[in-house]
């Protein structure tokens, strides 16, 4: 996908994110000011664009802007754009080069610092757990454990971390964003396993010479900020406009916090798919196969599934993407753990042709490719195009029922 996306970044600074503000500017918190009562906003703009660098994977990547402050401060704050919005991770992570604040690193006992190894399938991200006050739209949460990725003060990555994935993703270019906002169905990135088990793969207690696996209480784990907001804390909704089949240069939509907490996030007649409470999987039925390890993921850049009848691209730059001779119309049935199901129609276009026709487009609803492991259908950001998709957190209930669920 690199070839598809090279050179896009320079063309794009037209989103509501205000690229001109940049991730390197420290801004003062605006406060209430002015005399007119502030709107209680639970909505933040989100955008699909080429991201903060021209070298990363940029197709179908959703970004927003987040303000972080040192705990308790209303002035020592920074607003950071191009934070990826990810419904299949949990917690806020910021790349150190994009962060100008010195956030307090959490201790892990015995003079050690608490470090984390965040593992995505394609890479690992290493850095300390620090506390930050987080402000997004009118929502705020205090002293939230976040991860600072690629902090030069903690550059020795233990083998137990670097062995978990093939590539180090500790720079903005390698990560493809200035940070990532994990707002999936779970409250913490690890959960109860890390409370009881030191060899959890996530957390390490590090001195200047030694890192050892460690347990971490739930409250000390990197935490989904939505769950810690004072209000509107039972989930979120991503709403994006429809995109024409050939794609769009950029796309702007909304991330709305809370479900059934305000007039703008009321539930209606959505299809509610509960997900399994351990892994967050739902079931996809595709080509008569029941794929029980499937998921909807704003952090995936296409629609990824296995169908050996669809031609794959021949250009090595598009390896593992689909390149059918003409547009395919397919259907998949998504089924929740609650047995509720819904049929979804989608199109698959030729990835090479999409790129050739509109090389600067970043929102590509028909971009699809193979998924390497059996039993999974990974319905990425294109699922959100033209939909209003709610993510209800675990341990919460809305008028549609108990989380964790996805509703659309």
């Amino acid at each position, binding site marked *: *996908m690199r070839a598809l996306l090279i050179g896009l970044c320079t063309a794009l600074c037209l989103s509501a994110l205000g690229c001109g503000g940049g991730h390197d500017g420290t801004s003062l918190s605006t406060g209430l000011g002015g005399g007119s009562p502030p709107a209680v906003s639970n909505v933040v703009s989100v955008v699909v664009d080429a991201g903060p660098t021209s070298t990363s994977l940029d197709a179908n990547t959703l970004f927003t802007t987040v303000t972080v402050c040192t705990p308790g401060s209303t002035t020592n704050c920074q607003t950071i754009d191009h934070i990826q919005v990810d419904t299949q991770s949990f917690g806020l992570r910021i790349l150190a080069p994009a962060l100008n604040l010195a956030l307090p690193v959490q201790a892990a006992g015995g003079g050690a610092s608490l470090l984390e190894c965040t593992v*995505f*399938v394609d890479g690992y991200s290493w850095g300390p757990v620090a506390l930050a006050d987080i402000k997004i739209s009118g929502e705020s949460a205090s002293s939230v454990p976040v991860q600072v990725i690629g902090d030069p003060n903690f550059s020795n990555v233990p083998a137990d971390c670097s*062995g978990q994935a093939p590539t180090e993703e500790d720079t903005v270019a390698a990560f493809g964003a200035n940070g990532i906002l994990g707002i999936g169905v779970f409250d913490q990135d690890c959960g109860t396993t890390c409370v009881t088990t030191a060899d959890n793969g996530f957390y390490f207690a590090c001195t200047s010479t030694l890192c050892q696996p460690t347990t971490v209480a739930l409250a000390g784990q990197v935490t989904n900020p939505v769950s810690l907001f004072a209000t509107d804390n039972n989930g979120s909704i991503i709403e994006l406009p429809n995109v024409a089949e050939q794609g769009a240069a950029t796309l702007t939509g909304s991330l709305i916090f809370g479900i059934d907490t305000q007039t703008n996030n009321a539930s209606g007649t959505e299809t509610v798919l509960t997900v399994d409470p351990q892994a967050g999987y739902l079931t996809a039925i595709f080509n008569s196969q029941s794929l029980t390890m499937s998921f909807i993921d704003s952090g995936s850049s296409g629609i990824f599934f296995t169908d050996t009848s669809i031609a794959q691209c021949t250009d090595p730059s598009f390896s593992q993407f689909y390149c059918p001779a003409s547009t395919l119309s397919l259907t998949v049935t998504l089924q929740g753990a609650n047995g509720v199901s819904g049929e979804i129609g989608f199109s698959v276009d030729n990835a090479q042709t999409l790129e050739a026709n509109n090389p600067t487009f970043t929102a590509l609803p028909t971009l699809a490719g193979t998924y390497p*492991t059996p039993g999974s259908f*990974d319905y990425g950001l294109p699922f959100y195009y033209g939909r209003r998709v709610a993510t209800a957190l675990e341990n919460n209930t809305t008028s549609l029922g108990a989380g964790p669920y996805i509703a659309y």
Partner: protein
Amino acid sequence: MLNARSAMNVKKCLVASGVLIAALIPCIAAAALGEPEASVQTDALQLRGSIHVTEHASYRLHEIQLPSGTLVREFVGADGKVFAVAWRGPAAPNLRQMLGRYFEPFAAAAGAHRTGHSHLQIQTGDLVVQAGGHMRAMAGRAYLPAGVPNGVDLGELH
């Protein structure tokens, strides 16, 4: 069929580990994929997991339950060598340990071909690695196509 010698090696190593873990090191290789069956013991030690072994028609299956909740499976052919490893669970296992000498070529190939956070497919030299998932839900496998015994469906290797 599995030969008796590899089974004996496993037994020796188990005995050694009971006496002194350091004594285990000389009798086994450093990592699993492509290595003798005894190396599974090293994996279990390094990954701090417990092993359960079952016999199948064309291979012997070692299951290593990791403390993280992730299950690792290592497939050993009649030649006594590990031809596939697979994993599934909340955290990725230490792939450098499980892939051994295949890890660096895997990492190099993965770095050169990025398809995003949610999945990965690498075919390089005599190695195939396929992985997918997201935070709290990782799954994947690595295998040596030339080492897969005749009659074994790739679908079994998970």
